C-alpha cells in the first residue's frame, strides 16, 4: 500500500491551482500532483504514490550503495576484507 514508484517528469502544468505533471514510468505515462516537490524540473525523477509526488530522488545518494560495493570489490582484490571498509552511509 505504501508502494511508491520512481518516474521521470516529462511535463509540468497547473490545474486547479496545483502544480501537476506528466510522469514517465519506463514508457507508461501518468499524471501526478507535484505540489509538494514544487522545485522539480523536467527530467528529474520523483517518487509517486497514489498520484502524488512524495519526494524528488537524489541522484548522488542513489549511487552511494553502488560506489560502496565497488570499493568493497577493490578491497577484496587487494585481499583486505571489510575490516577497513567504511560503513554505508558514512562519509
Amino acid at each position, binding site marked *: *500500500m*505504501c*508502494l511508491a514508484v520512481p518516474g521521470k517528469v516529462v511535463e509540468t502544468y497547473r490545474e486547479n491551482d496545483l502544480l501537476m505533471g506528466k510522469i514517465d514510468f519506463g514508457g507508461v505515462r501518468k499524471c501526478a500532483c507535484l505540489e509538494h516537490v514544487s522545485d522539480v524540473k523536467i527530467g528529474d525523477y520523483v517518487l509517486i504514490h497514489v498520484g502524488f509526488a*512524495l519526494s524528488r530522488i537524489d541522484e548522488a545518494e542513489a549511487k552511494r550503495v553502488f560506489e560502496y*560495493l565497488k570499493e*568493497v570489490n577493490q578491497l577484496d582484490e587487494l585481499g583486505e576484507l*571489510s575490516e577497513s571498509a567504511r560503513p554505508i552511509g558514512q562519509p
Partner: protein
Amino acid sequence: MMRYVAEYRDGAAVEKLIAEIRRTVTRKWTLMEVCGGQTHTIVKYGLDSILPDAIELVHGPGCPVCVTPLEMIDRAHAIAQRPNVIFCSFGDMLRVPGSKGDLLALKSQGSDIRIVYSPLDALQIAKNNPQSKVVFFAIGFETTAPANAMAVFQARRLGIKNFSVLVSHVLVPPVITAILQATGNRVQGFLGPGHVCTVMGYTEYEPIAKFYRVPIVITGFEPVDMLEGILQTVRQLEAGQTCVANAYGRAVARAGNPASKKLLDEVFEVCDRQWRGIGIISKSGLKLRYEFHAHDAERLFEVGAIETHESPHCISGQILKGLKKPAQCSAFGTLCTPQTPLGATMVSSEGACAAYHAYGRIKAEETT
C-alpha cells in the same frame, strides 16, 4: 543513467551485500521490517532464505489495508449501501472482509463502488457527479496521508460540497513503540518505513531508538535497499549501537517533506485509533480537524452502533506484532486463503500471510 529500479534488483549487488552481512554477523539477531511492501520484497525474492541463518526477519504491522479496523470496514460498507452514494476506494480495500462480506460483493449487489488510483481522482468524480454524494475511503499510513489531505483541502478550496472522506489513518511510531512494549517482544532492530519517512522524516524515531535501545535503519523496498538496511542494522547491533540511520537517502531527508507535513497538520489531528488484530493504540491515528467537518463522512453519515465479528481462528494480531509466523496458524492455507481471507494479514498482498501464500511458502514452512 540511473532509472532507480532495475539497479536495485541487481543480482551481483545482492550477492556482495549478502557476503558483507555474512562477514559482519557473529550471533543471532531478530530484525523486524516494518512495512508490508518490505515483507513482500523479502518473500518475493526469497531474501530470508539467502541471508545467514543467524538473522531472523519478523514481519511488521505496516500494511494499512490489514490493520484498518473491522468497525471502520463495516462503517464503509454501511455508507456504500446508501442510495445516491458513490463510494470510492483504493483497489486493495475491495476484498477486505467486513463482518458481512466485502465491498466487491456490495458492488455486485448494485452499490456504486469505484476503484480509484488517487484520492484526487475521487475528487474529480465528485466534480463530475454533483447530484451524488461521493465518499472516499481515506486509509493508509503517513505515506498516503498527504494525497488524502490534498483531496480534502482542494474540496474545500474549490467548494466541492458533495465530496467527503471516511478517514482511518494510522501512524508508524506509536505501533513500533507498542511492539517494543509488548510482553514477549523479540525484535532487536528495525528496518524503518522508507516511504513513511519520505513524508515525515525520521526525527520521531530518534527518541524511540534511544529509549528502547534499538537501532532503527530507514530502509527502501528493493532487494538491494533491503539488504543495505539489514547490513546497517546488523553492524549497529554487533557494535552495540542504537541509532537511527538512513539507508534510503535517495528518497528520504531527515526532516521529511516540509510541505507535506504542513498540509497534514492543517487538515488532520492526532487521535487514538483501533488497529485490526492489535487493539487500540493511543495517539496512533489521524482524523480530520473540525474545520473540515463538512467533508467528514463519519459525521455526515450516521450509521448507528456497529457490532463486529472476527474469525475465532485468526492469529493475525500475533503475526502483526512479530510474535508468530503465518505457518503457525492452523487455518493458514486451508480455511484461510487469499480467496477466502479470515483476517487482516491474508487480505492484502502486502500482508505477511498473503505474501507467504502467494510465493508458495506453504509446504516449505510446514516441514520446518
